């Protein structure tokens, strides 16, 4: 294992390059109301769910930005809006300076599309079972018309397969002939096929076993070092995030409650929710250590608590937490949405 050779200080990469992705005031509201006629006859008003609420962050070139949060926190909704699968209700997603959801930038975005790719959670669902691996990986190359010549394309597919640690001859096989980890490698090869700059990884290792998870995480880091990729890494597993991220954003019910460089977030978390999350993760290093379990569960996002969404579970909640939405405060290099830091 060439651990030493590949090891490098990831935090040193920060701040060396300009922003690639800029998210501003991003908001997404889903309408869960029953049909109009039912509302008229049976009564009851509109029901909406704010999945993502005024989220801002930037991702610099070559960085891995991780979004963490429990189910219902809006992680995947943000990812979908970033790759162009779901229009936001408000706010903007700028990638390479072009606004994804602004018609004036349509031309620039079409050119940008090639540079944005996505890796999904379940490698059993994200690969077409009736296509050979070669066709799966070839698809983006064809779709963007990158390599017109068929033979060159096959050669490129072979290269991509070797890049992710598979045999070029594996292109002849079907997805069912591979294990979960190998399938995720195929999904990565497909994402790399269009020479992207930015890859959104939505829980890329949650469906994998630990020993295979380590292989895929190491591969993603290795590819980033070699190809200068920028990642948005979505995960609910904090230990995994700690190993890949340069910056981390913590989501709670659609709001970004804390954002900080990875090292700081894990060594000195500021927001009470971040502290609670870090404390709740079962860790093999904690064998035999008793600890306090936290109270409560994530409330229903359809009617979240007013003010700070976290206040009913917060051990440090104050009277106005239930009333006022906390603004973003700067604490060191972290941005924290919490009233505790108001007077600093």
């Amino acid at each position, binding site marked *: *294992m*060439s*651990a030493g050779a*590949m*090891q*490098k*200080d*990831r*935090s040193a990469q920060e701040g060396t390059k300009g922003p690639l992705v800029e998210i501003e005031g991003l908001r997404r509201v889903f309408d869960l109301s029953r049909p109009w006629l039912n509302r008229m006859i049976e009564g009851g008003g509109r029901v909406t769910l704010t999945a993502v609420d005024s989220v801002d962050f930037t991702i610099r070139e070559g960085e891995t930005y991780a979004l963490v949060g*429990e*189910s219902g926190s809006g992680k995947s909704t943000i990812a979908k809006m970033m790759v162009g699968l779901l229009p936001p209700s408000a706010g903007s997603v700028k990638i390479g300076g072009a606004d994804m959801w602004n018609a004036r930038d349509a031309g620039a975005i079409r050119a940008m599309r090639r540079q944005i790719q996505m890796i999904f959670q379940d490698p059993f669902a994200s690969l077409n079972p009736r296509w050979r691996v070669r066709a799966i990986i070839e698809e983006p190359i064809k779709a963007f018309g990158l390599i017109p010549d068929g033979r060159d394309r096959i050669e490129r597919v072979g290269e991509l397969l070797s890049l992710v640690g598979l045999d070029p001859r594996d292109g002849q096989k079907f997805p069912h002939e591979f*294990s*979960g*980890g*190998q399938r995720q490698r195929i999904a990565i090869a497909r994402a790399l096929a269009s020479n992207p700059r930015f890859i959104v990884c939505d829980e890329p290792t949650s469906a994998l*076993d*630990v*020993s*295979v*998870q*380590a*292989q895929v*995480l*190491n591969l993603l*880091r290795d590819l980033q070092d070699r190809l200068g990729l920028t990642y948005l890494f979505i995960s*609910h*597993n*904090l*230990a*995994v995030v*700690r*190993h890949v991220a340069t910056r981390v954003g913590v989501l709670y019910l659609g709001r970004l409650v804390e954002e900080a460089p*990875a*090292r700081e977030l*894990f060594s000195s978390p500021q927001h009470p929710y971040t502290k*609670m*999350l*870090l404390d*709740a*993760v*079962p*860790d*093999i*290093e*904690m*064998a*035999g*250590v008793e*600890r306090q*379990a*936290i*109270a*409560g*569960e*994530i409330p229903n996002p359809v009617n979240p608590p007013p003010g700070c969404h976290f206040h009913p579970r917060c051990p440090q909640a104050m009277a106005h937490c239930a009333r006022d939405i906390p603004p973003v405060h700067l604490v060191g290099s972290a941005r924290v949405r919490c009233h505790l830091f108001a007077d600093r």
Partner: protein
Amino acid sequence: MTTPTLSVRNLRVEIPTRRGVLTAIDDLSFDIAPGEVLGMVGESGAGKSITGSAIIGLLEPPGRVAGGEIRLAGERIDNLSPDQMRRVRGRRIGMIFQDPLTSLNPLYRIGDQLVETILTHERLSTKAARAKGIKLLEEVGIPAAEARFSAYPHQFSGGMRQRVVIALALCADPELVIADEPTTALDVSVQAQIIALLKRLCADRGASVMLITHDMGVIAETADRVCVLYAGRLAEIGPVRAVVKHPQHPYTKGLMAAIPTLVGDPDATLAQIPGSMPRLGAIPAGCAFNPRCDYAFETCRTKRPGIYGAGTSDASCFLHSPADAPSAPAEVLRAADRSGIVLASEAKETIT
């Protein structure tokens, strides 16, 4: 010596398929002492859940117990008739499954499900059963238990549903609780609560627990001992701290190093085990782990290792048995010794 609550000896589970008979569990033996929490870990397909199903007699056909013995408090339960087994399940062995939504009937009120289960196992009046049910719900931490008694499963959140399932599993005061991935479907913050609850309730009642999970973190914080499975075979079994901190089987070693943790250097590359676990139809000859093992030598490829004492644990690896594998090359032994594997004294002598 006290009789173990559960004793599994040389268990063998086979699944006949069109392409031949697959051996899902091969020669697995372990004990669970009264009041003990035994963690069962392994990757998907290692046979954790099948072991659980075999114990409670709910193997999915065509799977079958093809050999070995399962004893509950000294009595054999693997050869009971389905009718007798039904009386063991629920009353003497409680079960908690991964998805609380599928283990509760969505059409019945929570309270009715509890009362029904209590009345199946105990001779009580409906009124007394209801009182007991409410008390159980309070014990598992459901607020306003009396009012929620008549609620339906969909009116509960995931964590609350799993609490109800725990109440159902414990309502007949079983000697053994088999919890199969009880927290996998839950969020981290809720997971910690459920684990603490399960641990406390079983400790109060003196019930033994077999905790099946793929999450080593959960095991590390909950179990007293841990049993690591690989391709349907026992790799290592021992006290949880020893297995986590000083693993003695090369597979366990690789597994522990591959788990990302919240301490240590985040920039270090994670250790990885090359390849993946073999499918049941393609388990290599000799030790099942040999193609992925850093320490494999000739004997490992031809002969299957037994279970040998290794420090405070037991491991199925020839590194711990100079008698069974006299041909172990000195450089392999030296490398193993350097990496913290406790060699037998004879082997230690040969390399020094």
